[in-house]
């Protein structure tokens, strides 16, 4: 039973082909790590899955729960359980965090035909999730990400994920810019959510995060496609040899 099936995906951004035949299958309960050098197309993959405008699929397909994901608007993908933790969370001055999150959660629930939460139910849920991420409640009364430190923004992403309880979470370089304490908090938040019916795609440049979020599969993304897949030990070998090692192996294979 596959949750996400990407086949031979080609994506063009601003006239330039970034993904060049990427294929990936994710089943419920699995944690997949996508590693790769800068410019390989890692963030593009996250944005395409979440439905950002300007990412044009020229070939291939993406199935999510057996449906064509590319037919869905971003909000419909969210309601269907998709979540992208942004590499660069957007600051939105003037929009209150609590108001935004309640609007988001209730819009998702409504789209799924579930009852909306009232303010009391929502606040109770929020307090539970804040505790897990070691976030202070005053964060709720601030504008979305406005004036947050880099670490606060990343923890806020994971907090949103905890609150929205997606079925497929894509974490785009959530580890970048985090110190070791913040990294552990983020990893704790993710590990607490690992479940048989939930899958994660963890996009990262460094192996460090994978010490704390141990993946079932590791894929190396280079030049727009997945060039190597393996278990968690692949990340360790990458860390030891660097991405140049993959390029050399590819050359050797080609010869």
């Amino acid at each position, binding site marked *: 039973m596959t949750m996400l099936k990407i086949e031979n995906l080609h994506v063009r951004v601003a006239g330039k082909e970034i993904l060049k035949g990427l294929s990936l299958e994710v089943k419920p309960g699995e944690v997949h790590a996508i590693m790769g050098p800068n410019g390989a197309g890692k963030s593009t993959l996250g944005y395409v899955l*979440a*439905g*950002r*405008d300007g990412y044009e699929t020229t070939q291939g397909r993406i199935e999510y729960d057996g449906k064509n994901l590319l037919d869905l*608007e*971003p*909000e419909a*993908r*969210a*309601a269907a359980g998709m*979540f*992208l933790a*942004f590499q660069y*969370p*957007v600051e*939105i*001055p*003037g*929009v*209150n965090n609590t*108001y*935004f*999150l309640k*609007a*988001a*959660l209730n*819009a*998702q629930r409504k*789209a799924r035909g579930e009852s909306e939460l009232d303010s009391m139910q929502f606040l109770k849920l929020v307090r539970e999730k804040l505790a897990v991420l070691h976030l202070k409640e005053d964060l709720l009364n601030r*504008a979305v990400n406005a004036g947050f430190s880099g670490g606060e923004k990343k923890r806020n992403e994971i907090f*949103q994920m905890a609150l*929205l309880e997606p079925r497929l979470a894509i974490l785009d370089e959530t580890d970048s810019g985090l110190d070791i304490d913040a990294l552990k908090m983020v990893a704790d938040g993710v590990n607490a959510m690992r479940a048989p019916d939930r899958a994660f795609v963890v996009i990262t440049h460094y192996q460090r995060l994978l010490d704390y979020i141990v993946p079932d599969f590791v894929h190396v993304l280079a030049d727009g496609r997945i060039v190597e897949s393996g278990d968690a030990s692949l990340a360790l070998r990458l860390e030891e040899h660097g991405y140049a090692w993959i390029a050399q192996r590819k050359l050797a294979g080609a010869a």
Partner: protein
Amino acid sequence: MDGLLDEFGSGDAQARAESWRYSRQALRALEQQSFQSADANVSVPQALIDRFDWPQTRGHRLVFVNGVLDATLSDAGTSGAIIETDAVGVHALRFAGKGVMHLVFVNVATAMPSRWNAAVHIRVESGKAFLVEQHVGMQGADMLGALASDFTIADGASLQTATLGDLPGSASLVRRVGVTIGAGSAFGATHALCGGRFQRFDIDAQLTGAKAQLAARGVFALRGREHVDVHLDVRHAARDTISDVLWRGVADGRARGILHGAITVAPGADGADARLETKNLLLSPHAEIDAQPVLEIYADEVKASHGATVGQLDERALFYLRSRGVPLAAARNLLIAGFCRTAFSRIETTDLRGPFEALLDAHLPQQVDAGE
């Protein structure tokens, strides 16, 4: 025939023409109508009363109906103000110590297009006074109101104002206020201007005493064919004075907004600190906002900054909200309202933020895609 321009403009012919150049057409259209003097002896519909009868300002309220003070609707017994009216109908309000006043200007349409004039002067002798100025009205025959005010803030005193311009499409308002801010005193103003056929707001502020401070905030949120023209003129005339202006503008449809923000630092006003920031959002290709920051500095050791932007909704922010499940239209509204609300951050009492946010929510400009 420059009747209304002569009446509402100030300075010589050239200065008037320049100051009104974006609103000359709107004024001409008004000039072509024949307005009669508004009848103040009208009954105010309950629906209109409900819009200003806030529990928190009962006993602190003066209500003007078509420009004339209405004794039945007014009750300012606990406002802390001494109220006097002179022979020509100019109202003078004096505050010493703590005071709160809610001034309401109600436009009740009559059978014919009509117009009113009112003058209210405010003097804060000492302590801190808080003033809410609210303009409301009902749709009907055209109405043109003109309100002239002088605010004088004595040395060491403070006046904080909150202005809500909430007018129906048949009402126009020309409001001029001159503010004199004494040594060590503070003037704060927050505006939310919505609706109306035409609204013109002139604030002419003079920082006349050392360490005088001004903070002006505001937003115009315009829909359809609404037209709001705001002129802020701030003059630093003493040492170590501070001015801080922040304005937000949003327009949809064929609406028109103008923010002219001029800051002058006079010779000798050394140590002045002046900031002016305006950000504007255009939601339709036919909407227009003109943001004109003007800075003139004739003193030394002055800190001054200004910035003006006009742009569209942030695509990244929109995608961020949608990726969390907020539908497109709701995400746009959230961003538009949030953009405007950054102008309300100085409103100190939270029970006053309510009316501001409610006004904004009821008049929120909309972005509609072509073909929708």
